[in-house]
Protein backbone atom coordinates (compact mmCIF):
# COMPACT_ATOMS: atom_id res chain seq x y z
CA UNK A 1 0.00 0.00 0.00
CA UNK A 2 3.03 2.26 0.33
CA UNK A 3 2.71 3.28 -3.31
CA UNK A 4 -0.69 4.87 -2.68
CA UNK A 5 -0.72 8.52 -1.64
CA UNK A 6 -2.58 9.66 1.43
CA UNK A 7 -6.18 10.57 0.76
CA UNK A 8 -8.44 13.44 1.76
CA UNK A 9 -12.15 13.07 1.02
CA UNK A 10 -14.40 16.10 1.35
CA UNK A 11 -18.17 15.61 1.37
CA UNK A 12 -20.61 18.46 1.07
CA UNK A 13 -24.18 19.32 0.24
CA UNK A 14 -26.21 22.54 0.32
CA UNK A 15 -24.03 25.51 1.30
CA UNK A 16 -20.69 23.74 1.06
CA UNK A 17 -19.29 25.20 -2.13
CA UNK A 18 -18.12 28.44 -0.52
CA UNK A 19 -16.18 26.65 2.19
CA UNK A 20 -14.66 24.33 -0.35
CA UNK A 21 -13.46 27.32 -2.37
CA UNK A 22 -11.70 28.63 0.73
CA UNK A 23 -10.00 25.32 1.46
CA UNK A 24 -8.69 24.45 -1.97
CA UNK A 25 -6.07 27.22 -2.28
CA UNK A 26 -4.27 25.78 0.76
CA UNK A 27 -3.50 22.46 -0.94
CA UNK A 28 -0.11 22.14 -2.62
CA UNK A 29 0.45 19.99 -5.68
CA UNK A 30 3.76 18.60 -4.43
CA UNK A 31 2.18 17.00 -1.37
CA UNK A 32 1.86 13.20 -1.37
CA UNK A 33 -1.89 13.59 -1.14
CA UNK A 34 -4.81 12.81 -3.41
CA UNK A 35 -8.16 14.52 -2.89
CA UNK A 36 -11.70 13.36 -3.68
CA UNK A 37 -14.65 15.72 -3.59
CA UNK A 38 -18.19 14.40 -3.30
CA UNK A 39 -20.79 17.13 -3.68
CA UNK A 40 -24.56 16.75 -3.89
CA UNK A 41 -25.87 18.77 -6.79
CA UNK A 42 -28.17 18.85 -9.75
CA UNK A 43 -27.20 16.53 -12.57
CA UNK A 44 -25.48 17.82 -15.71
CA UNK A 45 -23.34 20.40 -13.95
CA UNK A 46 -20.16 18.33 -13.94
CA UNK A 47 -17.79 20.27 -16.14
CA UNK A 48 -18.96 23.53 -14.64
CA UNK A 49 -18.18 22.36 -11.15
CA UNK A 50 -14.68 21.13 -11.88
CA UNK A 51 -13.92 24.28 -13.88
CA UNK A 52 -15.07 26.37 -10.98
CA UNK A 53 -12.98 24.40 -8.50
CA UNK A 54 -9.90 24.53 -10.66
CA UNK A 55 -9.89 28.33 -10.50
CA UNK A 56 -9.06 27.95 -6.81
CA UNK A 57 -6.21 25.49 -6.87
CA UNK A 58 -2.92 24.64 -8.53
CA UNK A 59 -3.67 20.93 -8.27
CA UNK A 60 -5.19 19.38 -11.34
CA UNK A 61 -8.92 18.93 -11.03
CA UNK A 62 -10.71 16.24 -12.99
CA UNK A 63 -14.10 14.57 -13.13
CA UNK A 64 -13.44 11.09 -11.82
CA UNK A 65 -13.54 8.43 -14.52
CA UNK A 66 -13.74 4.71 -14.00
CA UNK A 67 -10.30 3.05 -13.64
CA UNK A 68 -8.50 6.34 -12.94
CA UNK A 69 -5.71 5.61 -10.49
CA UNK A 70 -5.62 7.98 -7.53
CA UNK A 71 -2.44 9.95 -7.72
CA UNK A 72 -0.90 12.60 -5.53
CA UNK A 73 -1.47 16.22 -6.46
CA UNK A 74 -4.78 15.51 -8.10
CA UNK A 75 -8.35 16.40 -7.14
CA UNK A 76 -11.05 13.98 -8.31
CA UNK A 77 -14.64 15.16 -8.44
CA UNK A 78 -17.33 12.49 -8.15
CA UNK A 79 -19.52 12.86 -11.25
CA UNK A 80 -23.22 13.49 -10.82
CA UNK A 81 -25.48 10.45 -10.90
CA UNK A 82 -22.77 7.91 -9.97
CA UNK A 83 -21.42 6.68 -6.69
CA UNK A 84 -17.65 6.77 -6.50
CA UNK A 85 -15.86 3.74 -5.03
CA UNK A 86 -12.18 2.95 -4.54
CA UNK A 87 -10.59 -0.38 -5.44
CA UNK A 88 -7.88 -2.02 -3.35
CA UNK A 89 -5.28 -0.96 -5.94
CA UNK A 90 -6.29 2.69 -5.66
CA UNK A 91 -8.25 2.82 -8.90
CA UNK A 92 -11.72 4.31 -9.09
CA UNK A 93 -15.03 2.63 -9.83
CA UNK A 94 -18.22 4.43 -10.80
CA UNK A 95 -21.43 2.78 -9.74
CA UNK A 96 -24.93 3.73 -10.85
CA UNK A 97 -26.75 1.68 -8.22
CA UNK A 98 -29.65 2.92 -6.09
CA UNK A 99 -29.41 6.36 -4.52
CA UNK A 100 -28.35 6.49 -0.89
CA UNK A 101 -30.12 9.12 1.22
CA UNK A 102 -31.73 10.36 -1.99
CA UNK A 103 -28.24 11.11 -3.26
CA UNK A 104 -25.99 9.88 -6.03
CA UNK A 105 -23.12 10.44 -5.56
CA UNK A 106 -23.50 9.60 -1.90
CA UNK A 107 -20.91 10.81 0.58
CA UNK A 108 -21.40 7.71 2.76
CA UNK A 109 -20.55 5.42 -0.11
CA UNK A 110 -17.23 7.12 -0.87
CA UNK A 111 -16.25 7.60 2.78
CA UNK A 112 -16.84 3.91 3.48
CA UNK A 113 -15.11 2.68 0.40
CA UNK A 114 -12.11 4.96 1.00
CA UNK A 115 -11.89 3.74 4.58
CA UNK A 116 -11.70 0.12 3.47
CA UNK A 117 -8.69 0.82 1.29
CA UNK A 118 -6.89 3.68 3.03
CA UNK A 119 -7.53 2.96 6.70
CA UNK A 120 -5.43 5.32 8.78
CA UNK A 121 -4.04 7.11 5.71
CA UNK A 122 -7.42 8.72 5.18
CA UNK A 123 -8.88 12.01 6.38
CA UNK A 124 -12.54 12.85 5.83
CA UNK A 125 -14.18 16.20 6.11
CA UNK A 126 -17.95 16.71 6.14
CA UNK A 127 -19.30 20.15 5.32
CA UNK A 128 -22.59 22.03 5.30
CA UNK A 129 -25.81 20.37 4.11
CA UNK A 130 -29.44 19.47 4.66
CA UNK A 131 -29.05 15.70 4.35
CA UNK A 132 -28.14 12.82 6.67
CA UNK A 133 -25.52 11.60 4.20
CA UNK A 134 -21.93 11.28 5.47
CA UNK A 135 -22.53 10.41 9.11
CA UNK A 136 -22.55 6.65 8.74
CA UNK A 137 -19.52 6.89 6.48
CA UNK A 138 -17.59 8.87 9.09
CA UNK A 139 -18.39 6.13 11.56
CA UNK A 140 -16.77 3.55 9.31
CA UNK A 141 -13.79 5.80 8.64
CA UNK A 142 -13.23 6.12 12.35
CA UNK A 143 -13.59 2.40 13.00
CA UNK A 144 -10.98 1.71 10.36
CA UNK A 145 -8.52 4.20 11.78
CA UNK A 146 -9.07 7.27 9.61
CA UNK A 147 -9.32 10.88 10.75
CA UNK A 148 -12.83 12.39 10.89
CA UNK A 149 -13.80 16.05 11.03
CA UNK A 150 -16.96 18.05 10.41
CA UNK A 151 -17.63 21.69 9.89
CA UNK A 152 -18.89 23.38 13.03
CA UNK A 153 -22.67 23.46 12.47
CA UNK A 154 -22.80 27.01 13.83
CA UNK A 155 -20.58 28.18 10.99
CA UNK A 156 -22.34 26.13 8.31
CA UNK A 157 -24.77 27.72 5.90
CA UNK A 158 -27.00 24.69 6.47
CA UNK A 159 -26.25 23.10 9.81
CA UNK A 160 -28.29 19.90 9.56
CA UNK A 161 -25.75 17.58 7.97
CA UNK A 162 -22.74 18.33 10.21
CA UNK A 163 -24.99 18.39 13.28
CA UNK A 164 -26.45 15.02 12.41
CA UNK A 165 -22.94 13.60 12.05
CA UNK A 166 -21.87 14.98 15.41
CA UNK A 167 -24.93 13.48 17.00
CA UNK A 168 -24.23 9.96 15.89
CA UNK A 169 -20.42 9.82 15.62
CA UNK A 170 -17.76 10.91 18.07
CA UNK A 171 -15.80 12.71 15.36
CA UNK A 172 -12.17 13.65 15.94
CA UNK A 173 -12.66 17.36 15.31
CA UNK A 174 -15.36 19.96 14.86
CA UNK A 175 -13.80 22.79 12.89
CA UNK A 176 -14.69 26.42 12.46
CA UNK A 177 -13.66 27.72 9.05
CA UNK A 178 -10.29 29.06 10.19
CA UNK A 179 -9.45 25.80 11.92
CA UNK A 180 -10.41 23.89 8.86
CA UNK A 181 -8.02 25.96 6.78
CA UNK A 182 -5.26 25.38 9.33
CA UNK A 183 -6.00 21.68 9.22
CA UNK A 184 -5.73 21.52 5.46
CA UNK A 185 -2.42 23.43 5.63
CA UNK A 186 -1.13 20.82 8.06
CA UNK A 187 -2.00 17.90 5.81
CA UNK A 188 1.54 17.60 4.50
CA UNK A 189 2.74 17.33 8.04
CA UNK A 190 3.39 13.63 8.48
CA UNK A 191 2.37 13.28 12.08
CA UNK A 192 -1.01 14.84 11.38
CA UNK A 193 -2.33 12.28 8.99
CA UNK A 194 -0.26 9.15 8.92
Amino acid at each position, binding site marked *: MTSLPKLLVIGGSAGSLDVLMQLLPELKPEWPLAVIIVLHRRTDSDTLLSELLSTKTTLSVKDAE*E*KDILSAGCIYVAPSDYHLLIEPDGSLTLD*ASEKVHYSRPSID*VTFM*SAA*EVFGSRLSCLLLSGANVDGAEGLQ*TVQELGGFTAVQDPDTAEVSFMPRHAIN*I*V*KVDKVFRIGEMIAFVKSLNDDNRVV
Partner: protein
Amino acid sequence: MMENLRHLKDEDVLLLLNDLLEQYGYDFTDYSFASVKRRLQRVYITDRFPSFAEFRYRVKTDPEYLVYLMEQITVNVTEMFRDPGFFQELRKQILPVLATYPLIRIWHAGCSTGEEVYSVAILLHELNLLHKSVIYATDINESVLEKARKGIFPLQYMQQYSQNYQLSGGQQEFSRYYAANYEYAKFSDMLREKIIFAAHNLVTDRSFNEFQLIVCRNVLIYFNKDLQDKVLHLFSESLEQLGFLALGAKETLRFTTVAPLFKPIAHKEKIWRKIAT
Protein backbone atom coordinates in the same frame (compact mmCIF):
# COMPACT_ATOMS: atom_id res chain seq x y z
CA MET B 1 -24.26 6.06 19.41
CA MET B 2 -24.75 4.05 16.28
CA GLU B 3 -24.47 0.31 16.62
CA ASN B 4 -21.06 -0.86 15.47
CA LEU B 5 -21.05 -1.74 11.79
CA ARG B 6 -19.82 -5.19 11.02
CA HIS B 7 -17.33 -5.32 8.20
CA LEU B 8 -16.80 -8.14 5.80
CA LYS B 9 -13.09 -8.57 5.28
CA ASP B 10 -11.58 -8.70 1.81
CA GLU B 11 -10.73 -12.37 2.47
CA ASP B 12 -14.39 -13.09 3.28
CA VAL B 13 -15.49 -11.58 0.01
CA LEU B 14 -12.92 -13.64 -1.91
CA LEU B 15 -14.11 -16.80 -0.18
CA LEU B 16 -17.72 -16.11 -1.12
CA LEU B 17 -16.82 -15.30 -4.72
CA ASN B 18 -14.91 -18.53 -4.88
CA ASP B 19 -17.92 -20.46 -3.55
CA LEU B 20 -20.18 -18.89 -6.17
CA LEU B 21 -17.74 -19.92 -8.86
CA GLU B 22 -16.95 -23.45 -7.64
CA GLN B 23 -20.44 -24.39 -6.66
CA TYR B 24 -22.70 -22.51 -9.05
CA GLY B 25 -20.41 -21.56 -11.92
CA TYR B 26 -21.02 -17.81 -11.51
CA ASP B 27 -17.77 -15.96 -11.92
CA PHE B 28 -17.71 -12.57 -10.25
CA THR B 29 -13.97 -12.62 -9.61
CA ASP B 30 -13.27 -10.12 -12.38
CA TYR B 31 -15.97 -7.68 -11.31
CA SER B 32 -15.07 -4.42 -9.64
CA PHE B 33 -14.12 -5.61 -6.18
CA ALA B 34 -15.21 -2.45 -4.36
CA SER B 35 -18.69 -2.59 -5.86
CA VAL B 36 -19.21 -6.31 -5.19
CA LYS B 37 -17.88 -5.96 -1.67
CA ARG B 38 -20.20 -3.08 -0.93
CA ARG B 39 -23.21 -5.04 -2.14
CA LEU B 40 -22.29 -8.19 -0.22
CA GLN B 41 -21.73 -6.06 2.84
CA ARG B 42 -25.23 -4.63 2.48
CA VAL B 43 -26.82 -8.06 2.24
CA TYR B 44 -24.77 -9.27 5.21
CA ILE B 45 -26.09 -6.44 7.33
CA THR B 46 -29.72 -6.35 6.12
CA ASP B 47 -30.13 -10.08 6.52
CA ARG B 48 -28.64 -9.93 10.00
CA PHE B 49 -26.31 -12.87 9.86
CA PRO B 50 -24.70 -13.43 13.25
CA SER B 51 -21.38 -14.21 11.62
CA PHE B 52 -19.68 -14.47 8.27
CA ALA B 53 -19.60 -18.26 8.64
CA GLU B 54 -23.42 -18.35 8.78
CA PHE B 55 -23.67 -16.10 5.75
CA ARG B 56 -21.36 -18.36 3.83
CA TYR B 57 -23.20 -21.49 4.95
CA ARG B 58 -26.50 -20.06 3.75
CA VAL B 59 -25.07 -19.24 0.34
CA LYS B 60 -23.57 -22.71 0.01
CA THR B 61 -26.66 -24.63 1.06
CA ASP B 62 -29.65 -22.62 -0.14
CA PRO B 63 -29.98 -22.35 -3.93
CA GLU B 64 -32.97 -20.03 -3.59
CA TYR B 65 -30.92 -17.68 -1.50
CA LEU B 66 -28.32 -17.76 -4.23
CA VAL B 67 -30.82 -16.44 -6.77
CA TYR B 68 -31.59 -13.59 -4.43
CA LEU B 69 -27.91 -12.94 -3.74
CA MET B 70 -27.17 -12.77 -7.48
CA GLU B 71 -29.81 -10.13 -7.84
CA GLN B 72 -28.24 -8.20 -5.00
CA ILE B 73 -24.69 -8.43 -6.30
CA THR B 74 -25.49 -7.20 -9.78
CA VAL B 75 -26.73 -3.65 -10.14
CA ASN B 76 -30.07 -3.66 -11.97
CA VAL B 77 -30.95 0.03 -11.88
CA THR B 78 -32.27 1.20 -15.23
CA GLU B 79 -34.88 3.48 -16.79
CA MET B 80 -36.61 4.16 -20.09
CA PHE B 81 -34.81 6.56 -22.43
CA ARG B 82 -31.99 6.88 -19.88
CA ASP B 83 -29.65 9.60 -21.23
CA PRO B 84 -32.12 11.03 -23.77
CA GLY B 85 -29.27 12.34 -25.94
CA PHE B 86 -28.23 8.77 -26.67
CA PHE B 87 -31.70 7.82 -27.88
CA GLN B 88 -31.87 10.94 -29.99
CA GLU B 89 -28.62 9.89 -31.66
CA LEU B 90 -30.04 6.42 -32.31
CA ARG B 91 -33.20 7.90 -33.77
CA LYS B 92 -31.53 10.51 -35.95
CA GLN B 93 -28.20 8.96 -36.97
CA ILE B 94 -27.91 5.25 -36.33
CA LEU B 95 -31.28 3.63 -37.02
CA PRO B 96 -31.69 5.43 -40.38
CA VAL B 97 -28.45 3.73 -41.47
CA LEU B 98 -29.79 0.35 -40.34
CA ALA B 99 -33.03 1.05 -42.21
CA THR B 100 -31.32 0.07 -45.44
CA TYR B 101 -30.91 -3.56 -44.29
CA PRO B 102 -33.63 -6.11 -45.08
CA LEU B 103 -33.44 -7.47 -41.54
CA ILE B 104 -32.20 -5.49 -38.55
CA ARG B 105 -30.54 -7.48 -35.77
CA ILE B 106 -29.93 -5.79 -32.43
CA TRP B 107 -28.45 -7.17 -29.21
CA HIS B 108 -29.04 -5.59 -25.81
CA ALA B 109 -26.47 -7.19 -23.50
CA GLY B 110 -27.21 -6.67 -19.80
CA CYS B 111 -30.76 -5.51 -20.47
CA SER B 112 -31.87 -5.77 -16.83
CA THR B 113 -35.65 -5.37 -16.46
CA GLY B 114 -36.03 -4.30 -20.08
CA GLU B 115 -36.74 -0.57 -19.95
CA GLU B 116 -33.95 0.17 -22.41
CA VAL B 117 -35.14 -2.52 -24.82
CA TYR B 118 -38.72 -1.26 -24.87
CA SER B 119 -37.34 2.22 -25.50
CA VAL B 120 -35.49 1.05 -28.59
CA ALA B 121 -38.56 -0.90 -29.73
CA ILE B 122 -40.51 2.36 -29.54
CA LEU B 123 -37.91 4.11 -31.70
CA LEU B 124 -38.01 1.30 -34.25
CA HIS B 125 -41.79 1.42 -34.29
CA GLU B 126 -41.84 5.15 -34.87
CA LEU B 127 -39.33 4.83 -37.71
CA ASN B 128 -41.50 2.06 -39.15
CA LEU B 129 -38.66 -0.46 -38.79
CA LEU B 130 -39.92 -2.68 -36.01
CA HIS B 131 -41.61 -5.14 -38.36
CA LYS B 132 -38.25 -6.04 -39.90
CA SER B 133 -36.23 -6.10 -36.70
CA VAL B 134 -35.16 -8.81 -34.27
CA ILE B 135 -34.00 -7.69 -30.86
CA TYR B 136 -32.12 -10.08 -28.59
CA ALA B 137 -32.22 -8.90 -25.01
CA THR B 138 -30.00 -10.82 -22.62
CA ASP B 139 -28.94 -10.73 -19.01
CA ILE B 140 -27.17 -13.01 -16.55
CA ASN B 141 -30.07 -12.65 -14.16
CA GLU B 142 -33.21 -14.79 -14.66
CA SER B 143 -35.32 -12.73 -12.32
CA VAL B 144 -34.81 -9.43 -14.15
CA LEU B 145 -35.52 -11.19 -17.46
CA GLU B 146 -38.80 -12.44 -16.05
CA LYS B 147 -39.80 -8.85 -15.34
CA ALA B 148 -38.57 -7.71 -18.73
CA ARG B 149 -40.74 -10.27 -20.51
CA LYS B 150 -43.81 -8.93 -18.78
CA GLY B 151 -43.08 -5.33 -19.70
CA ILE B 152 -44.90 -4.07 -16.65
CA PHE B 153 -43.32 -1.10 -14.91
CA PRO B 154 -44.39 1.02 -11.93
CA LEU B 155 -46.76 3.77 -13.00
CA GLN B 156 -45.01 6.28 -10.75
CA TYR B 157 -42.04 6.40 -13.16
CA MET B 158 -44.07 7.18 -16.27
CA GLN B 159 -43.88 10.92 -15.86
CA GLN B 160 -40.08 10.77 -15.80
CA TYR B 161 -39.96 8.31 -18.71
CA SER B 162 -42.35 10.40 -20.73
CA GLN B 163 -40.14 13.41 -20.16
CA ASN B 164 -37.04 11.43 -21.19
CA TYR B 165 -38.90 10.24 -24.28
CA GLN B 166 -39.71 13.79 -25.30
CA LEU B 167 -36.17 14.98 -24.62
CA SER B 168 -34.95 12.21 -26.90
CA GLY B 169 -37.05 13.62 -29.73
CA GLY B 170 -40.23 11.60 -29.25
CA GLN B 171 -43.31 13.37 -30.55
CA GLN B 172 -46.13 11.02 -29.72
CA GLU B 173 -48.23 10.88 -26.61
CA PHE B 174 -46.04 8.52 -24.54
CA SER B 175 -49.06 7.00 -22.83
CA ARG B 176 -50.20 5.44 -26.08
CA TYR B 177 -47.57 2.75 -25.57
CA TYR B 178 -48.96 1.35 -22.35
CA ALA B 179 -52.16 0.49 -20.53
CA ALA B 180 -52.23 1.85 -17.01
CA ASN B 181 -53.95 0.71 -13.86
CA TYR B 182 -53.53 2.18 -10.39
CA GLU B 183 -49.98 1.04 -9.89
CA TYR B 184 -48.60 -0.30 -13.12
CA ALA B 185 -48.09 0.48 -16.75
CA LYS B 186 -48.18 -2.53 -19.03
CA PHE B 187 -46.40 -1.93 -22.32
CA SER B 188 -48.07 -2.92 -25.54
CA ASP B 189 -47.64 -6.44 -26.94
CA MET B 190 -46.89 -4.88 -30.31
CA LEU B 191 -43.53 -3.67 -28.88
CA ARG B 192 -42.68 -7.07 -27.45
CA GLU B 193 -43.33 -9.13 -30.55
CA LYS B 194 -39.85 -8.72 -31.99
CA ILE B 195 -37.94 -9.04 -28.73
CA ILE B 196 -36.35 -12.31 -27.61
CA PHE B 197 -35.42 -12.31 -23.95
CA ALA B 198 -32.84 -14.91 -22.97
CA ALA B 199 -30.22 -15.67 -20.34
CA HIS B 200 -26.66 -15.02 -21.46
CA ASN B 201 -23.61 -14.60 -19.27
CA LEU B 202 -21.07 -12.22 -20.77
CA VAL B 203 -18.29 -13.78 -18.70
CA THR B 204 -18.73 -17.36 -19.83
CA ASP B 205 -21.07 -17.55 -22.83
CA ARG B 206 -20.10 -17.19 -26.45
CA SER B 207 -21.23 -15.15 -29.38
CA PHE B 208 -24.57 -16.45 -30.70
CA ASN B 209 -25.30 -14.35 -33.78
CA GLU B 210 -24.13 -11.39 -35.86
CA PHE B 211 -25.63 -8.01 -35.23
CA GLN B 212 -25.67 -4.56 -36.76
CA LEU B 213 -26.07 -2.89 -33.40
CA ILE B 214 -24.99 -4.02 -29.95
CA VAL B 215 -26.15 -1.98 -26.98
CA CYS B 216 -24.36 -2.69 -23.71
CA ARG B 217 -24.78 0.20 -21.34
CA ASN B 218 -23.79 0.45 -17.71
CA VAL B 219 -22.58 -3.11 -17.53
CA LEU B 220 -18.84 -2.76 -18.24
CA ILE B 221 -18.32 -0.23 -15.44
CA TYR B 222 -18.78 -3.14 -13.03
CA PHE B 223 -16.01 -5.19 -14.68
CA ASN B 224 -12.26 -4.95 -14.25
CA LYS B 225 -10.04 -4.11 -17.20
CA ASP B 226 -9.29 -7.68 -18.26
CA LEU B 227 -12.93 -8.65 -18.26
CA GLN B 228 -13.88 -5.46 -20.11
CA ASP B 229 -11.39 -6.36 -22.82
CA LYS B 230 -12.66 -9.90 -23.05
CA VAL B 231 -16.29 -8.83 -23.36
CA LEU B 232 -15.44 -6.13 -25.89
CA HIS B 233 -13.79 -8.79 -28.06
CA LEU B 234 -16.96 -10.85 -27.79
CA PHE B 235 -18.89 -7.81 -29.05
CA SER B 236 -16.45 -7.21 -31.84
CA GLU B 237 -16.84 -10.82 -32.99
CA SER B 238 -20.61 -10.51 -32.80
CA LEU B 239 -20.80 -7.39 -34.95
CA GLU B 240 -21.06 -7.29 -38.70
CA GLN B 241 -18.59 -5.12 -40.55
CA LEU B 242 -19.66 -1.50 -40.08
CA GLY B 243 -21.86 -2.56 -37.18
CA PHE B 244 -22.44 -0.18 -34.26
CA LEU B 245 -21.51 -0.58 -30.62
CA ALA B 246 -23.15 1.57 -27.95
CA LEU B 247 -21.83 1.84 -24.39
CA GLY B 248 -22.97 3.66 -21.26
CA ALA B 249 -22.33 7.33 -20.50
CA LYS B 250 -19.20 6.64 -18.42
CA GLU B 251 -17.81 3.80 -20.51
CA THR B 252 -15.27 3.98 -23.29
CA LEU B 253 -13.28 1.96 -25.80
CA ARG B 254 -10.30 4.20 -25.23
CA PHE B 255 -7.32 2.33 -23.72
CA THR B 256 -8.90 -1.05 -24.51
CA THR B 257 -7.42 -3.64 -26.87
CA VAL B 258 -10.36 -3.42 -29.29
CA ALA B 259 -9.97 0.34 -29.77
CA PRO B 260 -8.12 -0.08 -33.12
CA LEU B 261 -11.04 -2.09 -34.52
CA PHE B 262 -13.54 0.74 -34.05
CA LYS B 263 -13.99 4.34 -34.90
CA PRO B 264 -15.91 6.76 -32.71
CA ILE B 265 -19.19 7.96 -34.25
CA ALA B 266 -20.82 9.96 -31.53
CA HIS B 267 -18.27 10.78 -28.89
CA LYS B 268 -20.56 12.11 -26.20
CA GLU B 269 -23.23 9.49 -26.79
CA LYS B 270 -20.65 6.68 -26.69
CA ILE B 271 -21.30 5.07 -30.04
CA TRP B 272 -18.57 3.38 -32.11
CA ARG B 273 -18.60 1.74 -35.50
CA LYS B 274 -16.68 -1.37 -36.42
CA ILE B 275 -14.15 -0.60 -39.11
CA ALA B 276 -14.37 -2.62 -42.33
CA THR B 277 -11.37 -4.88 -42.70
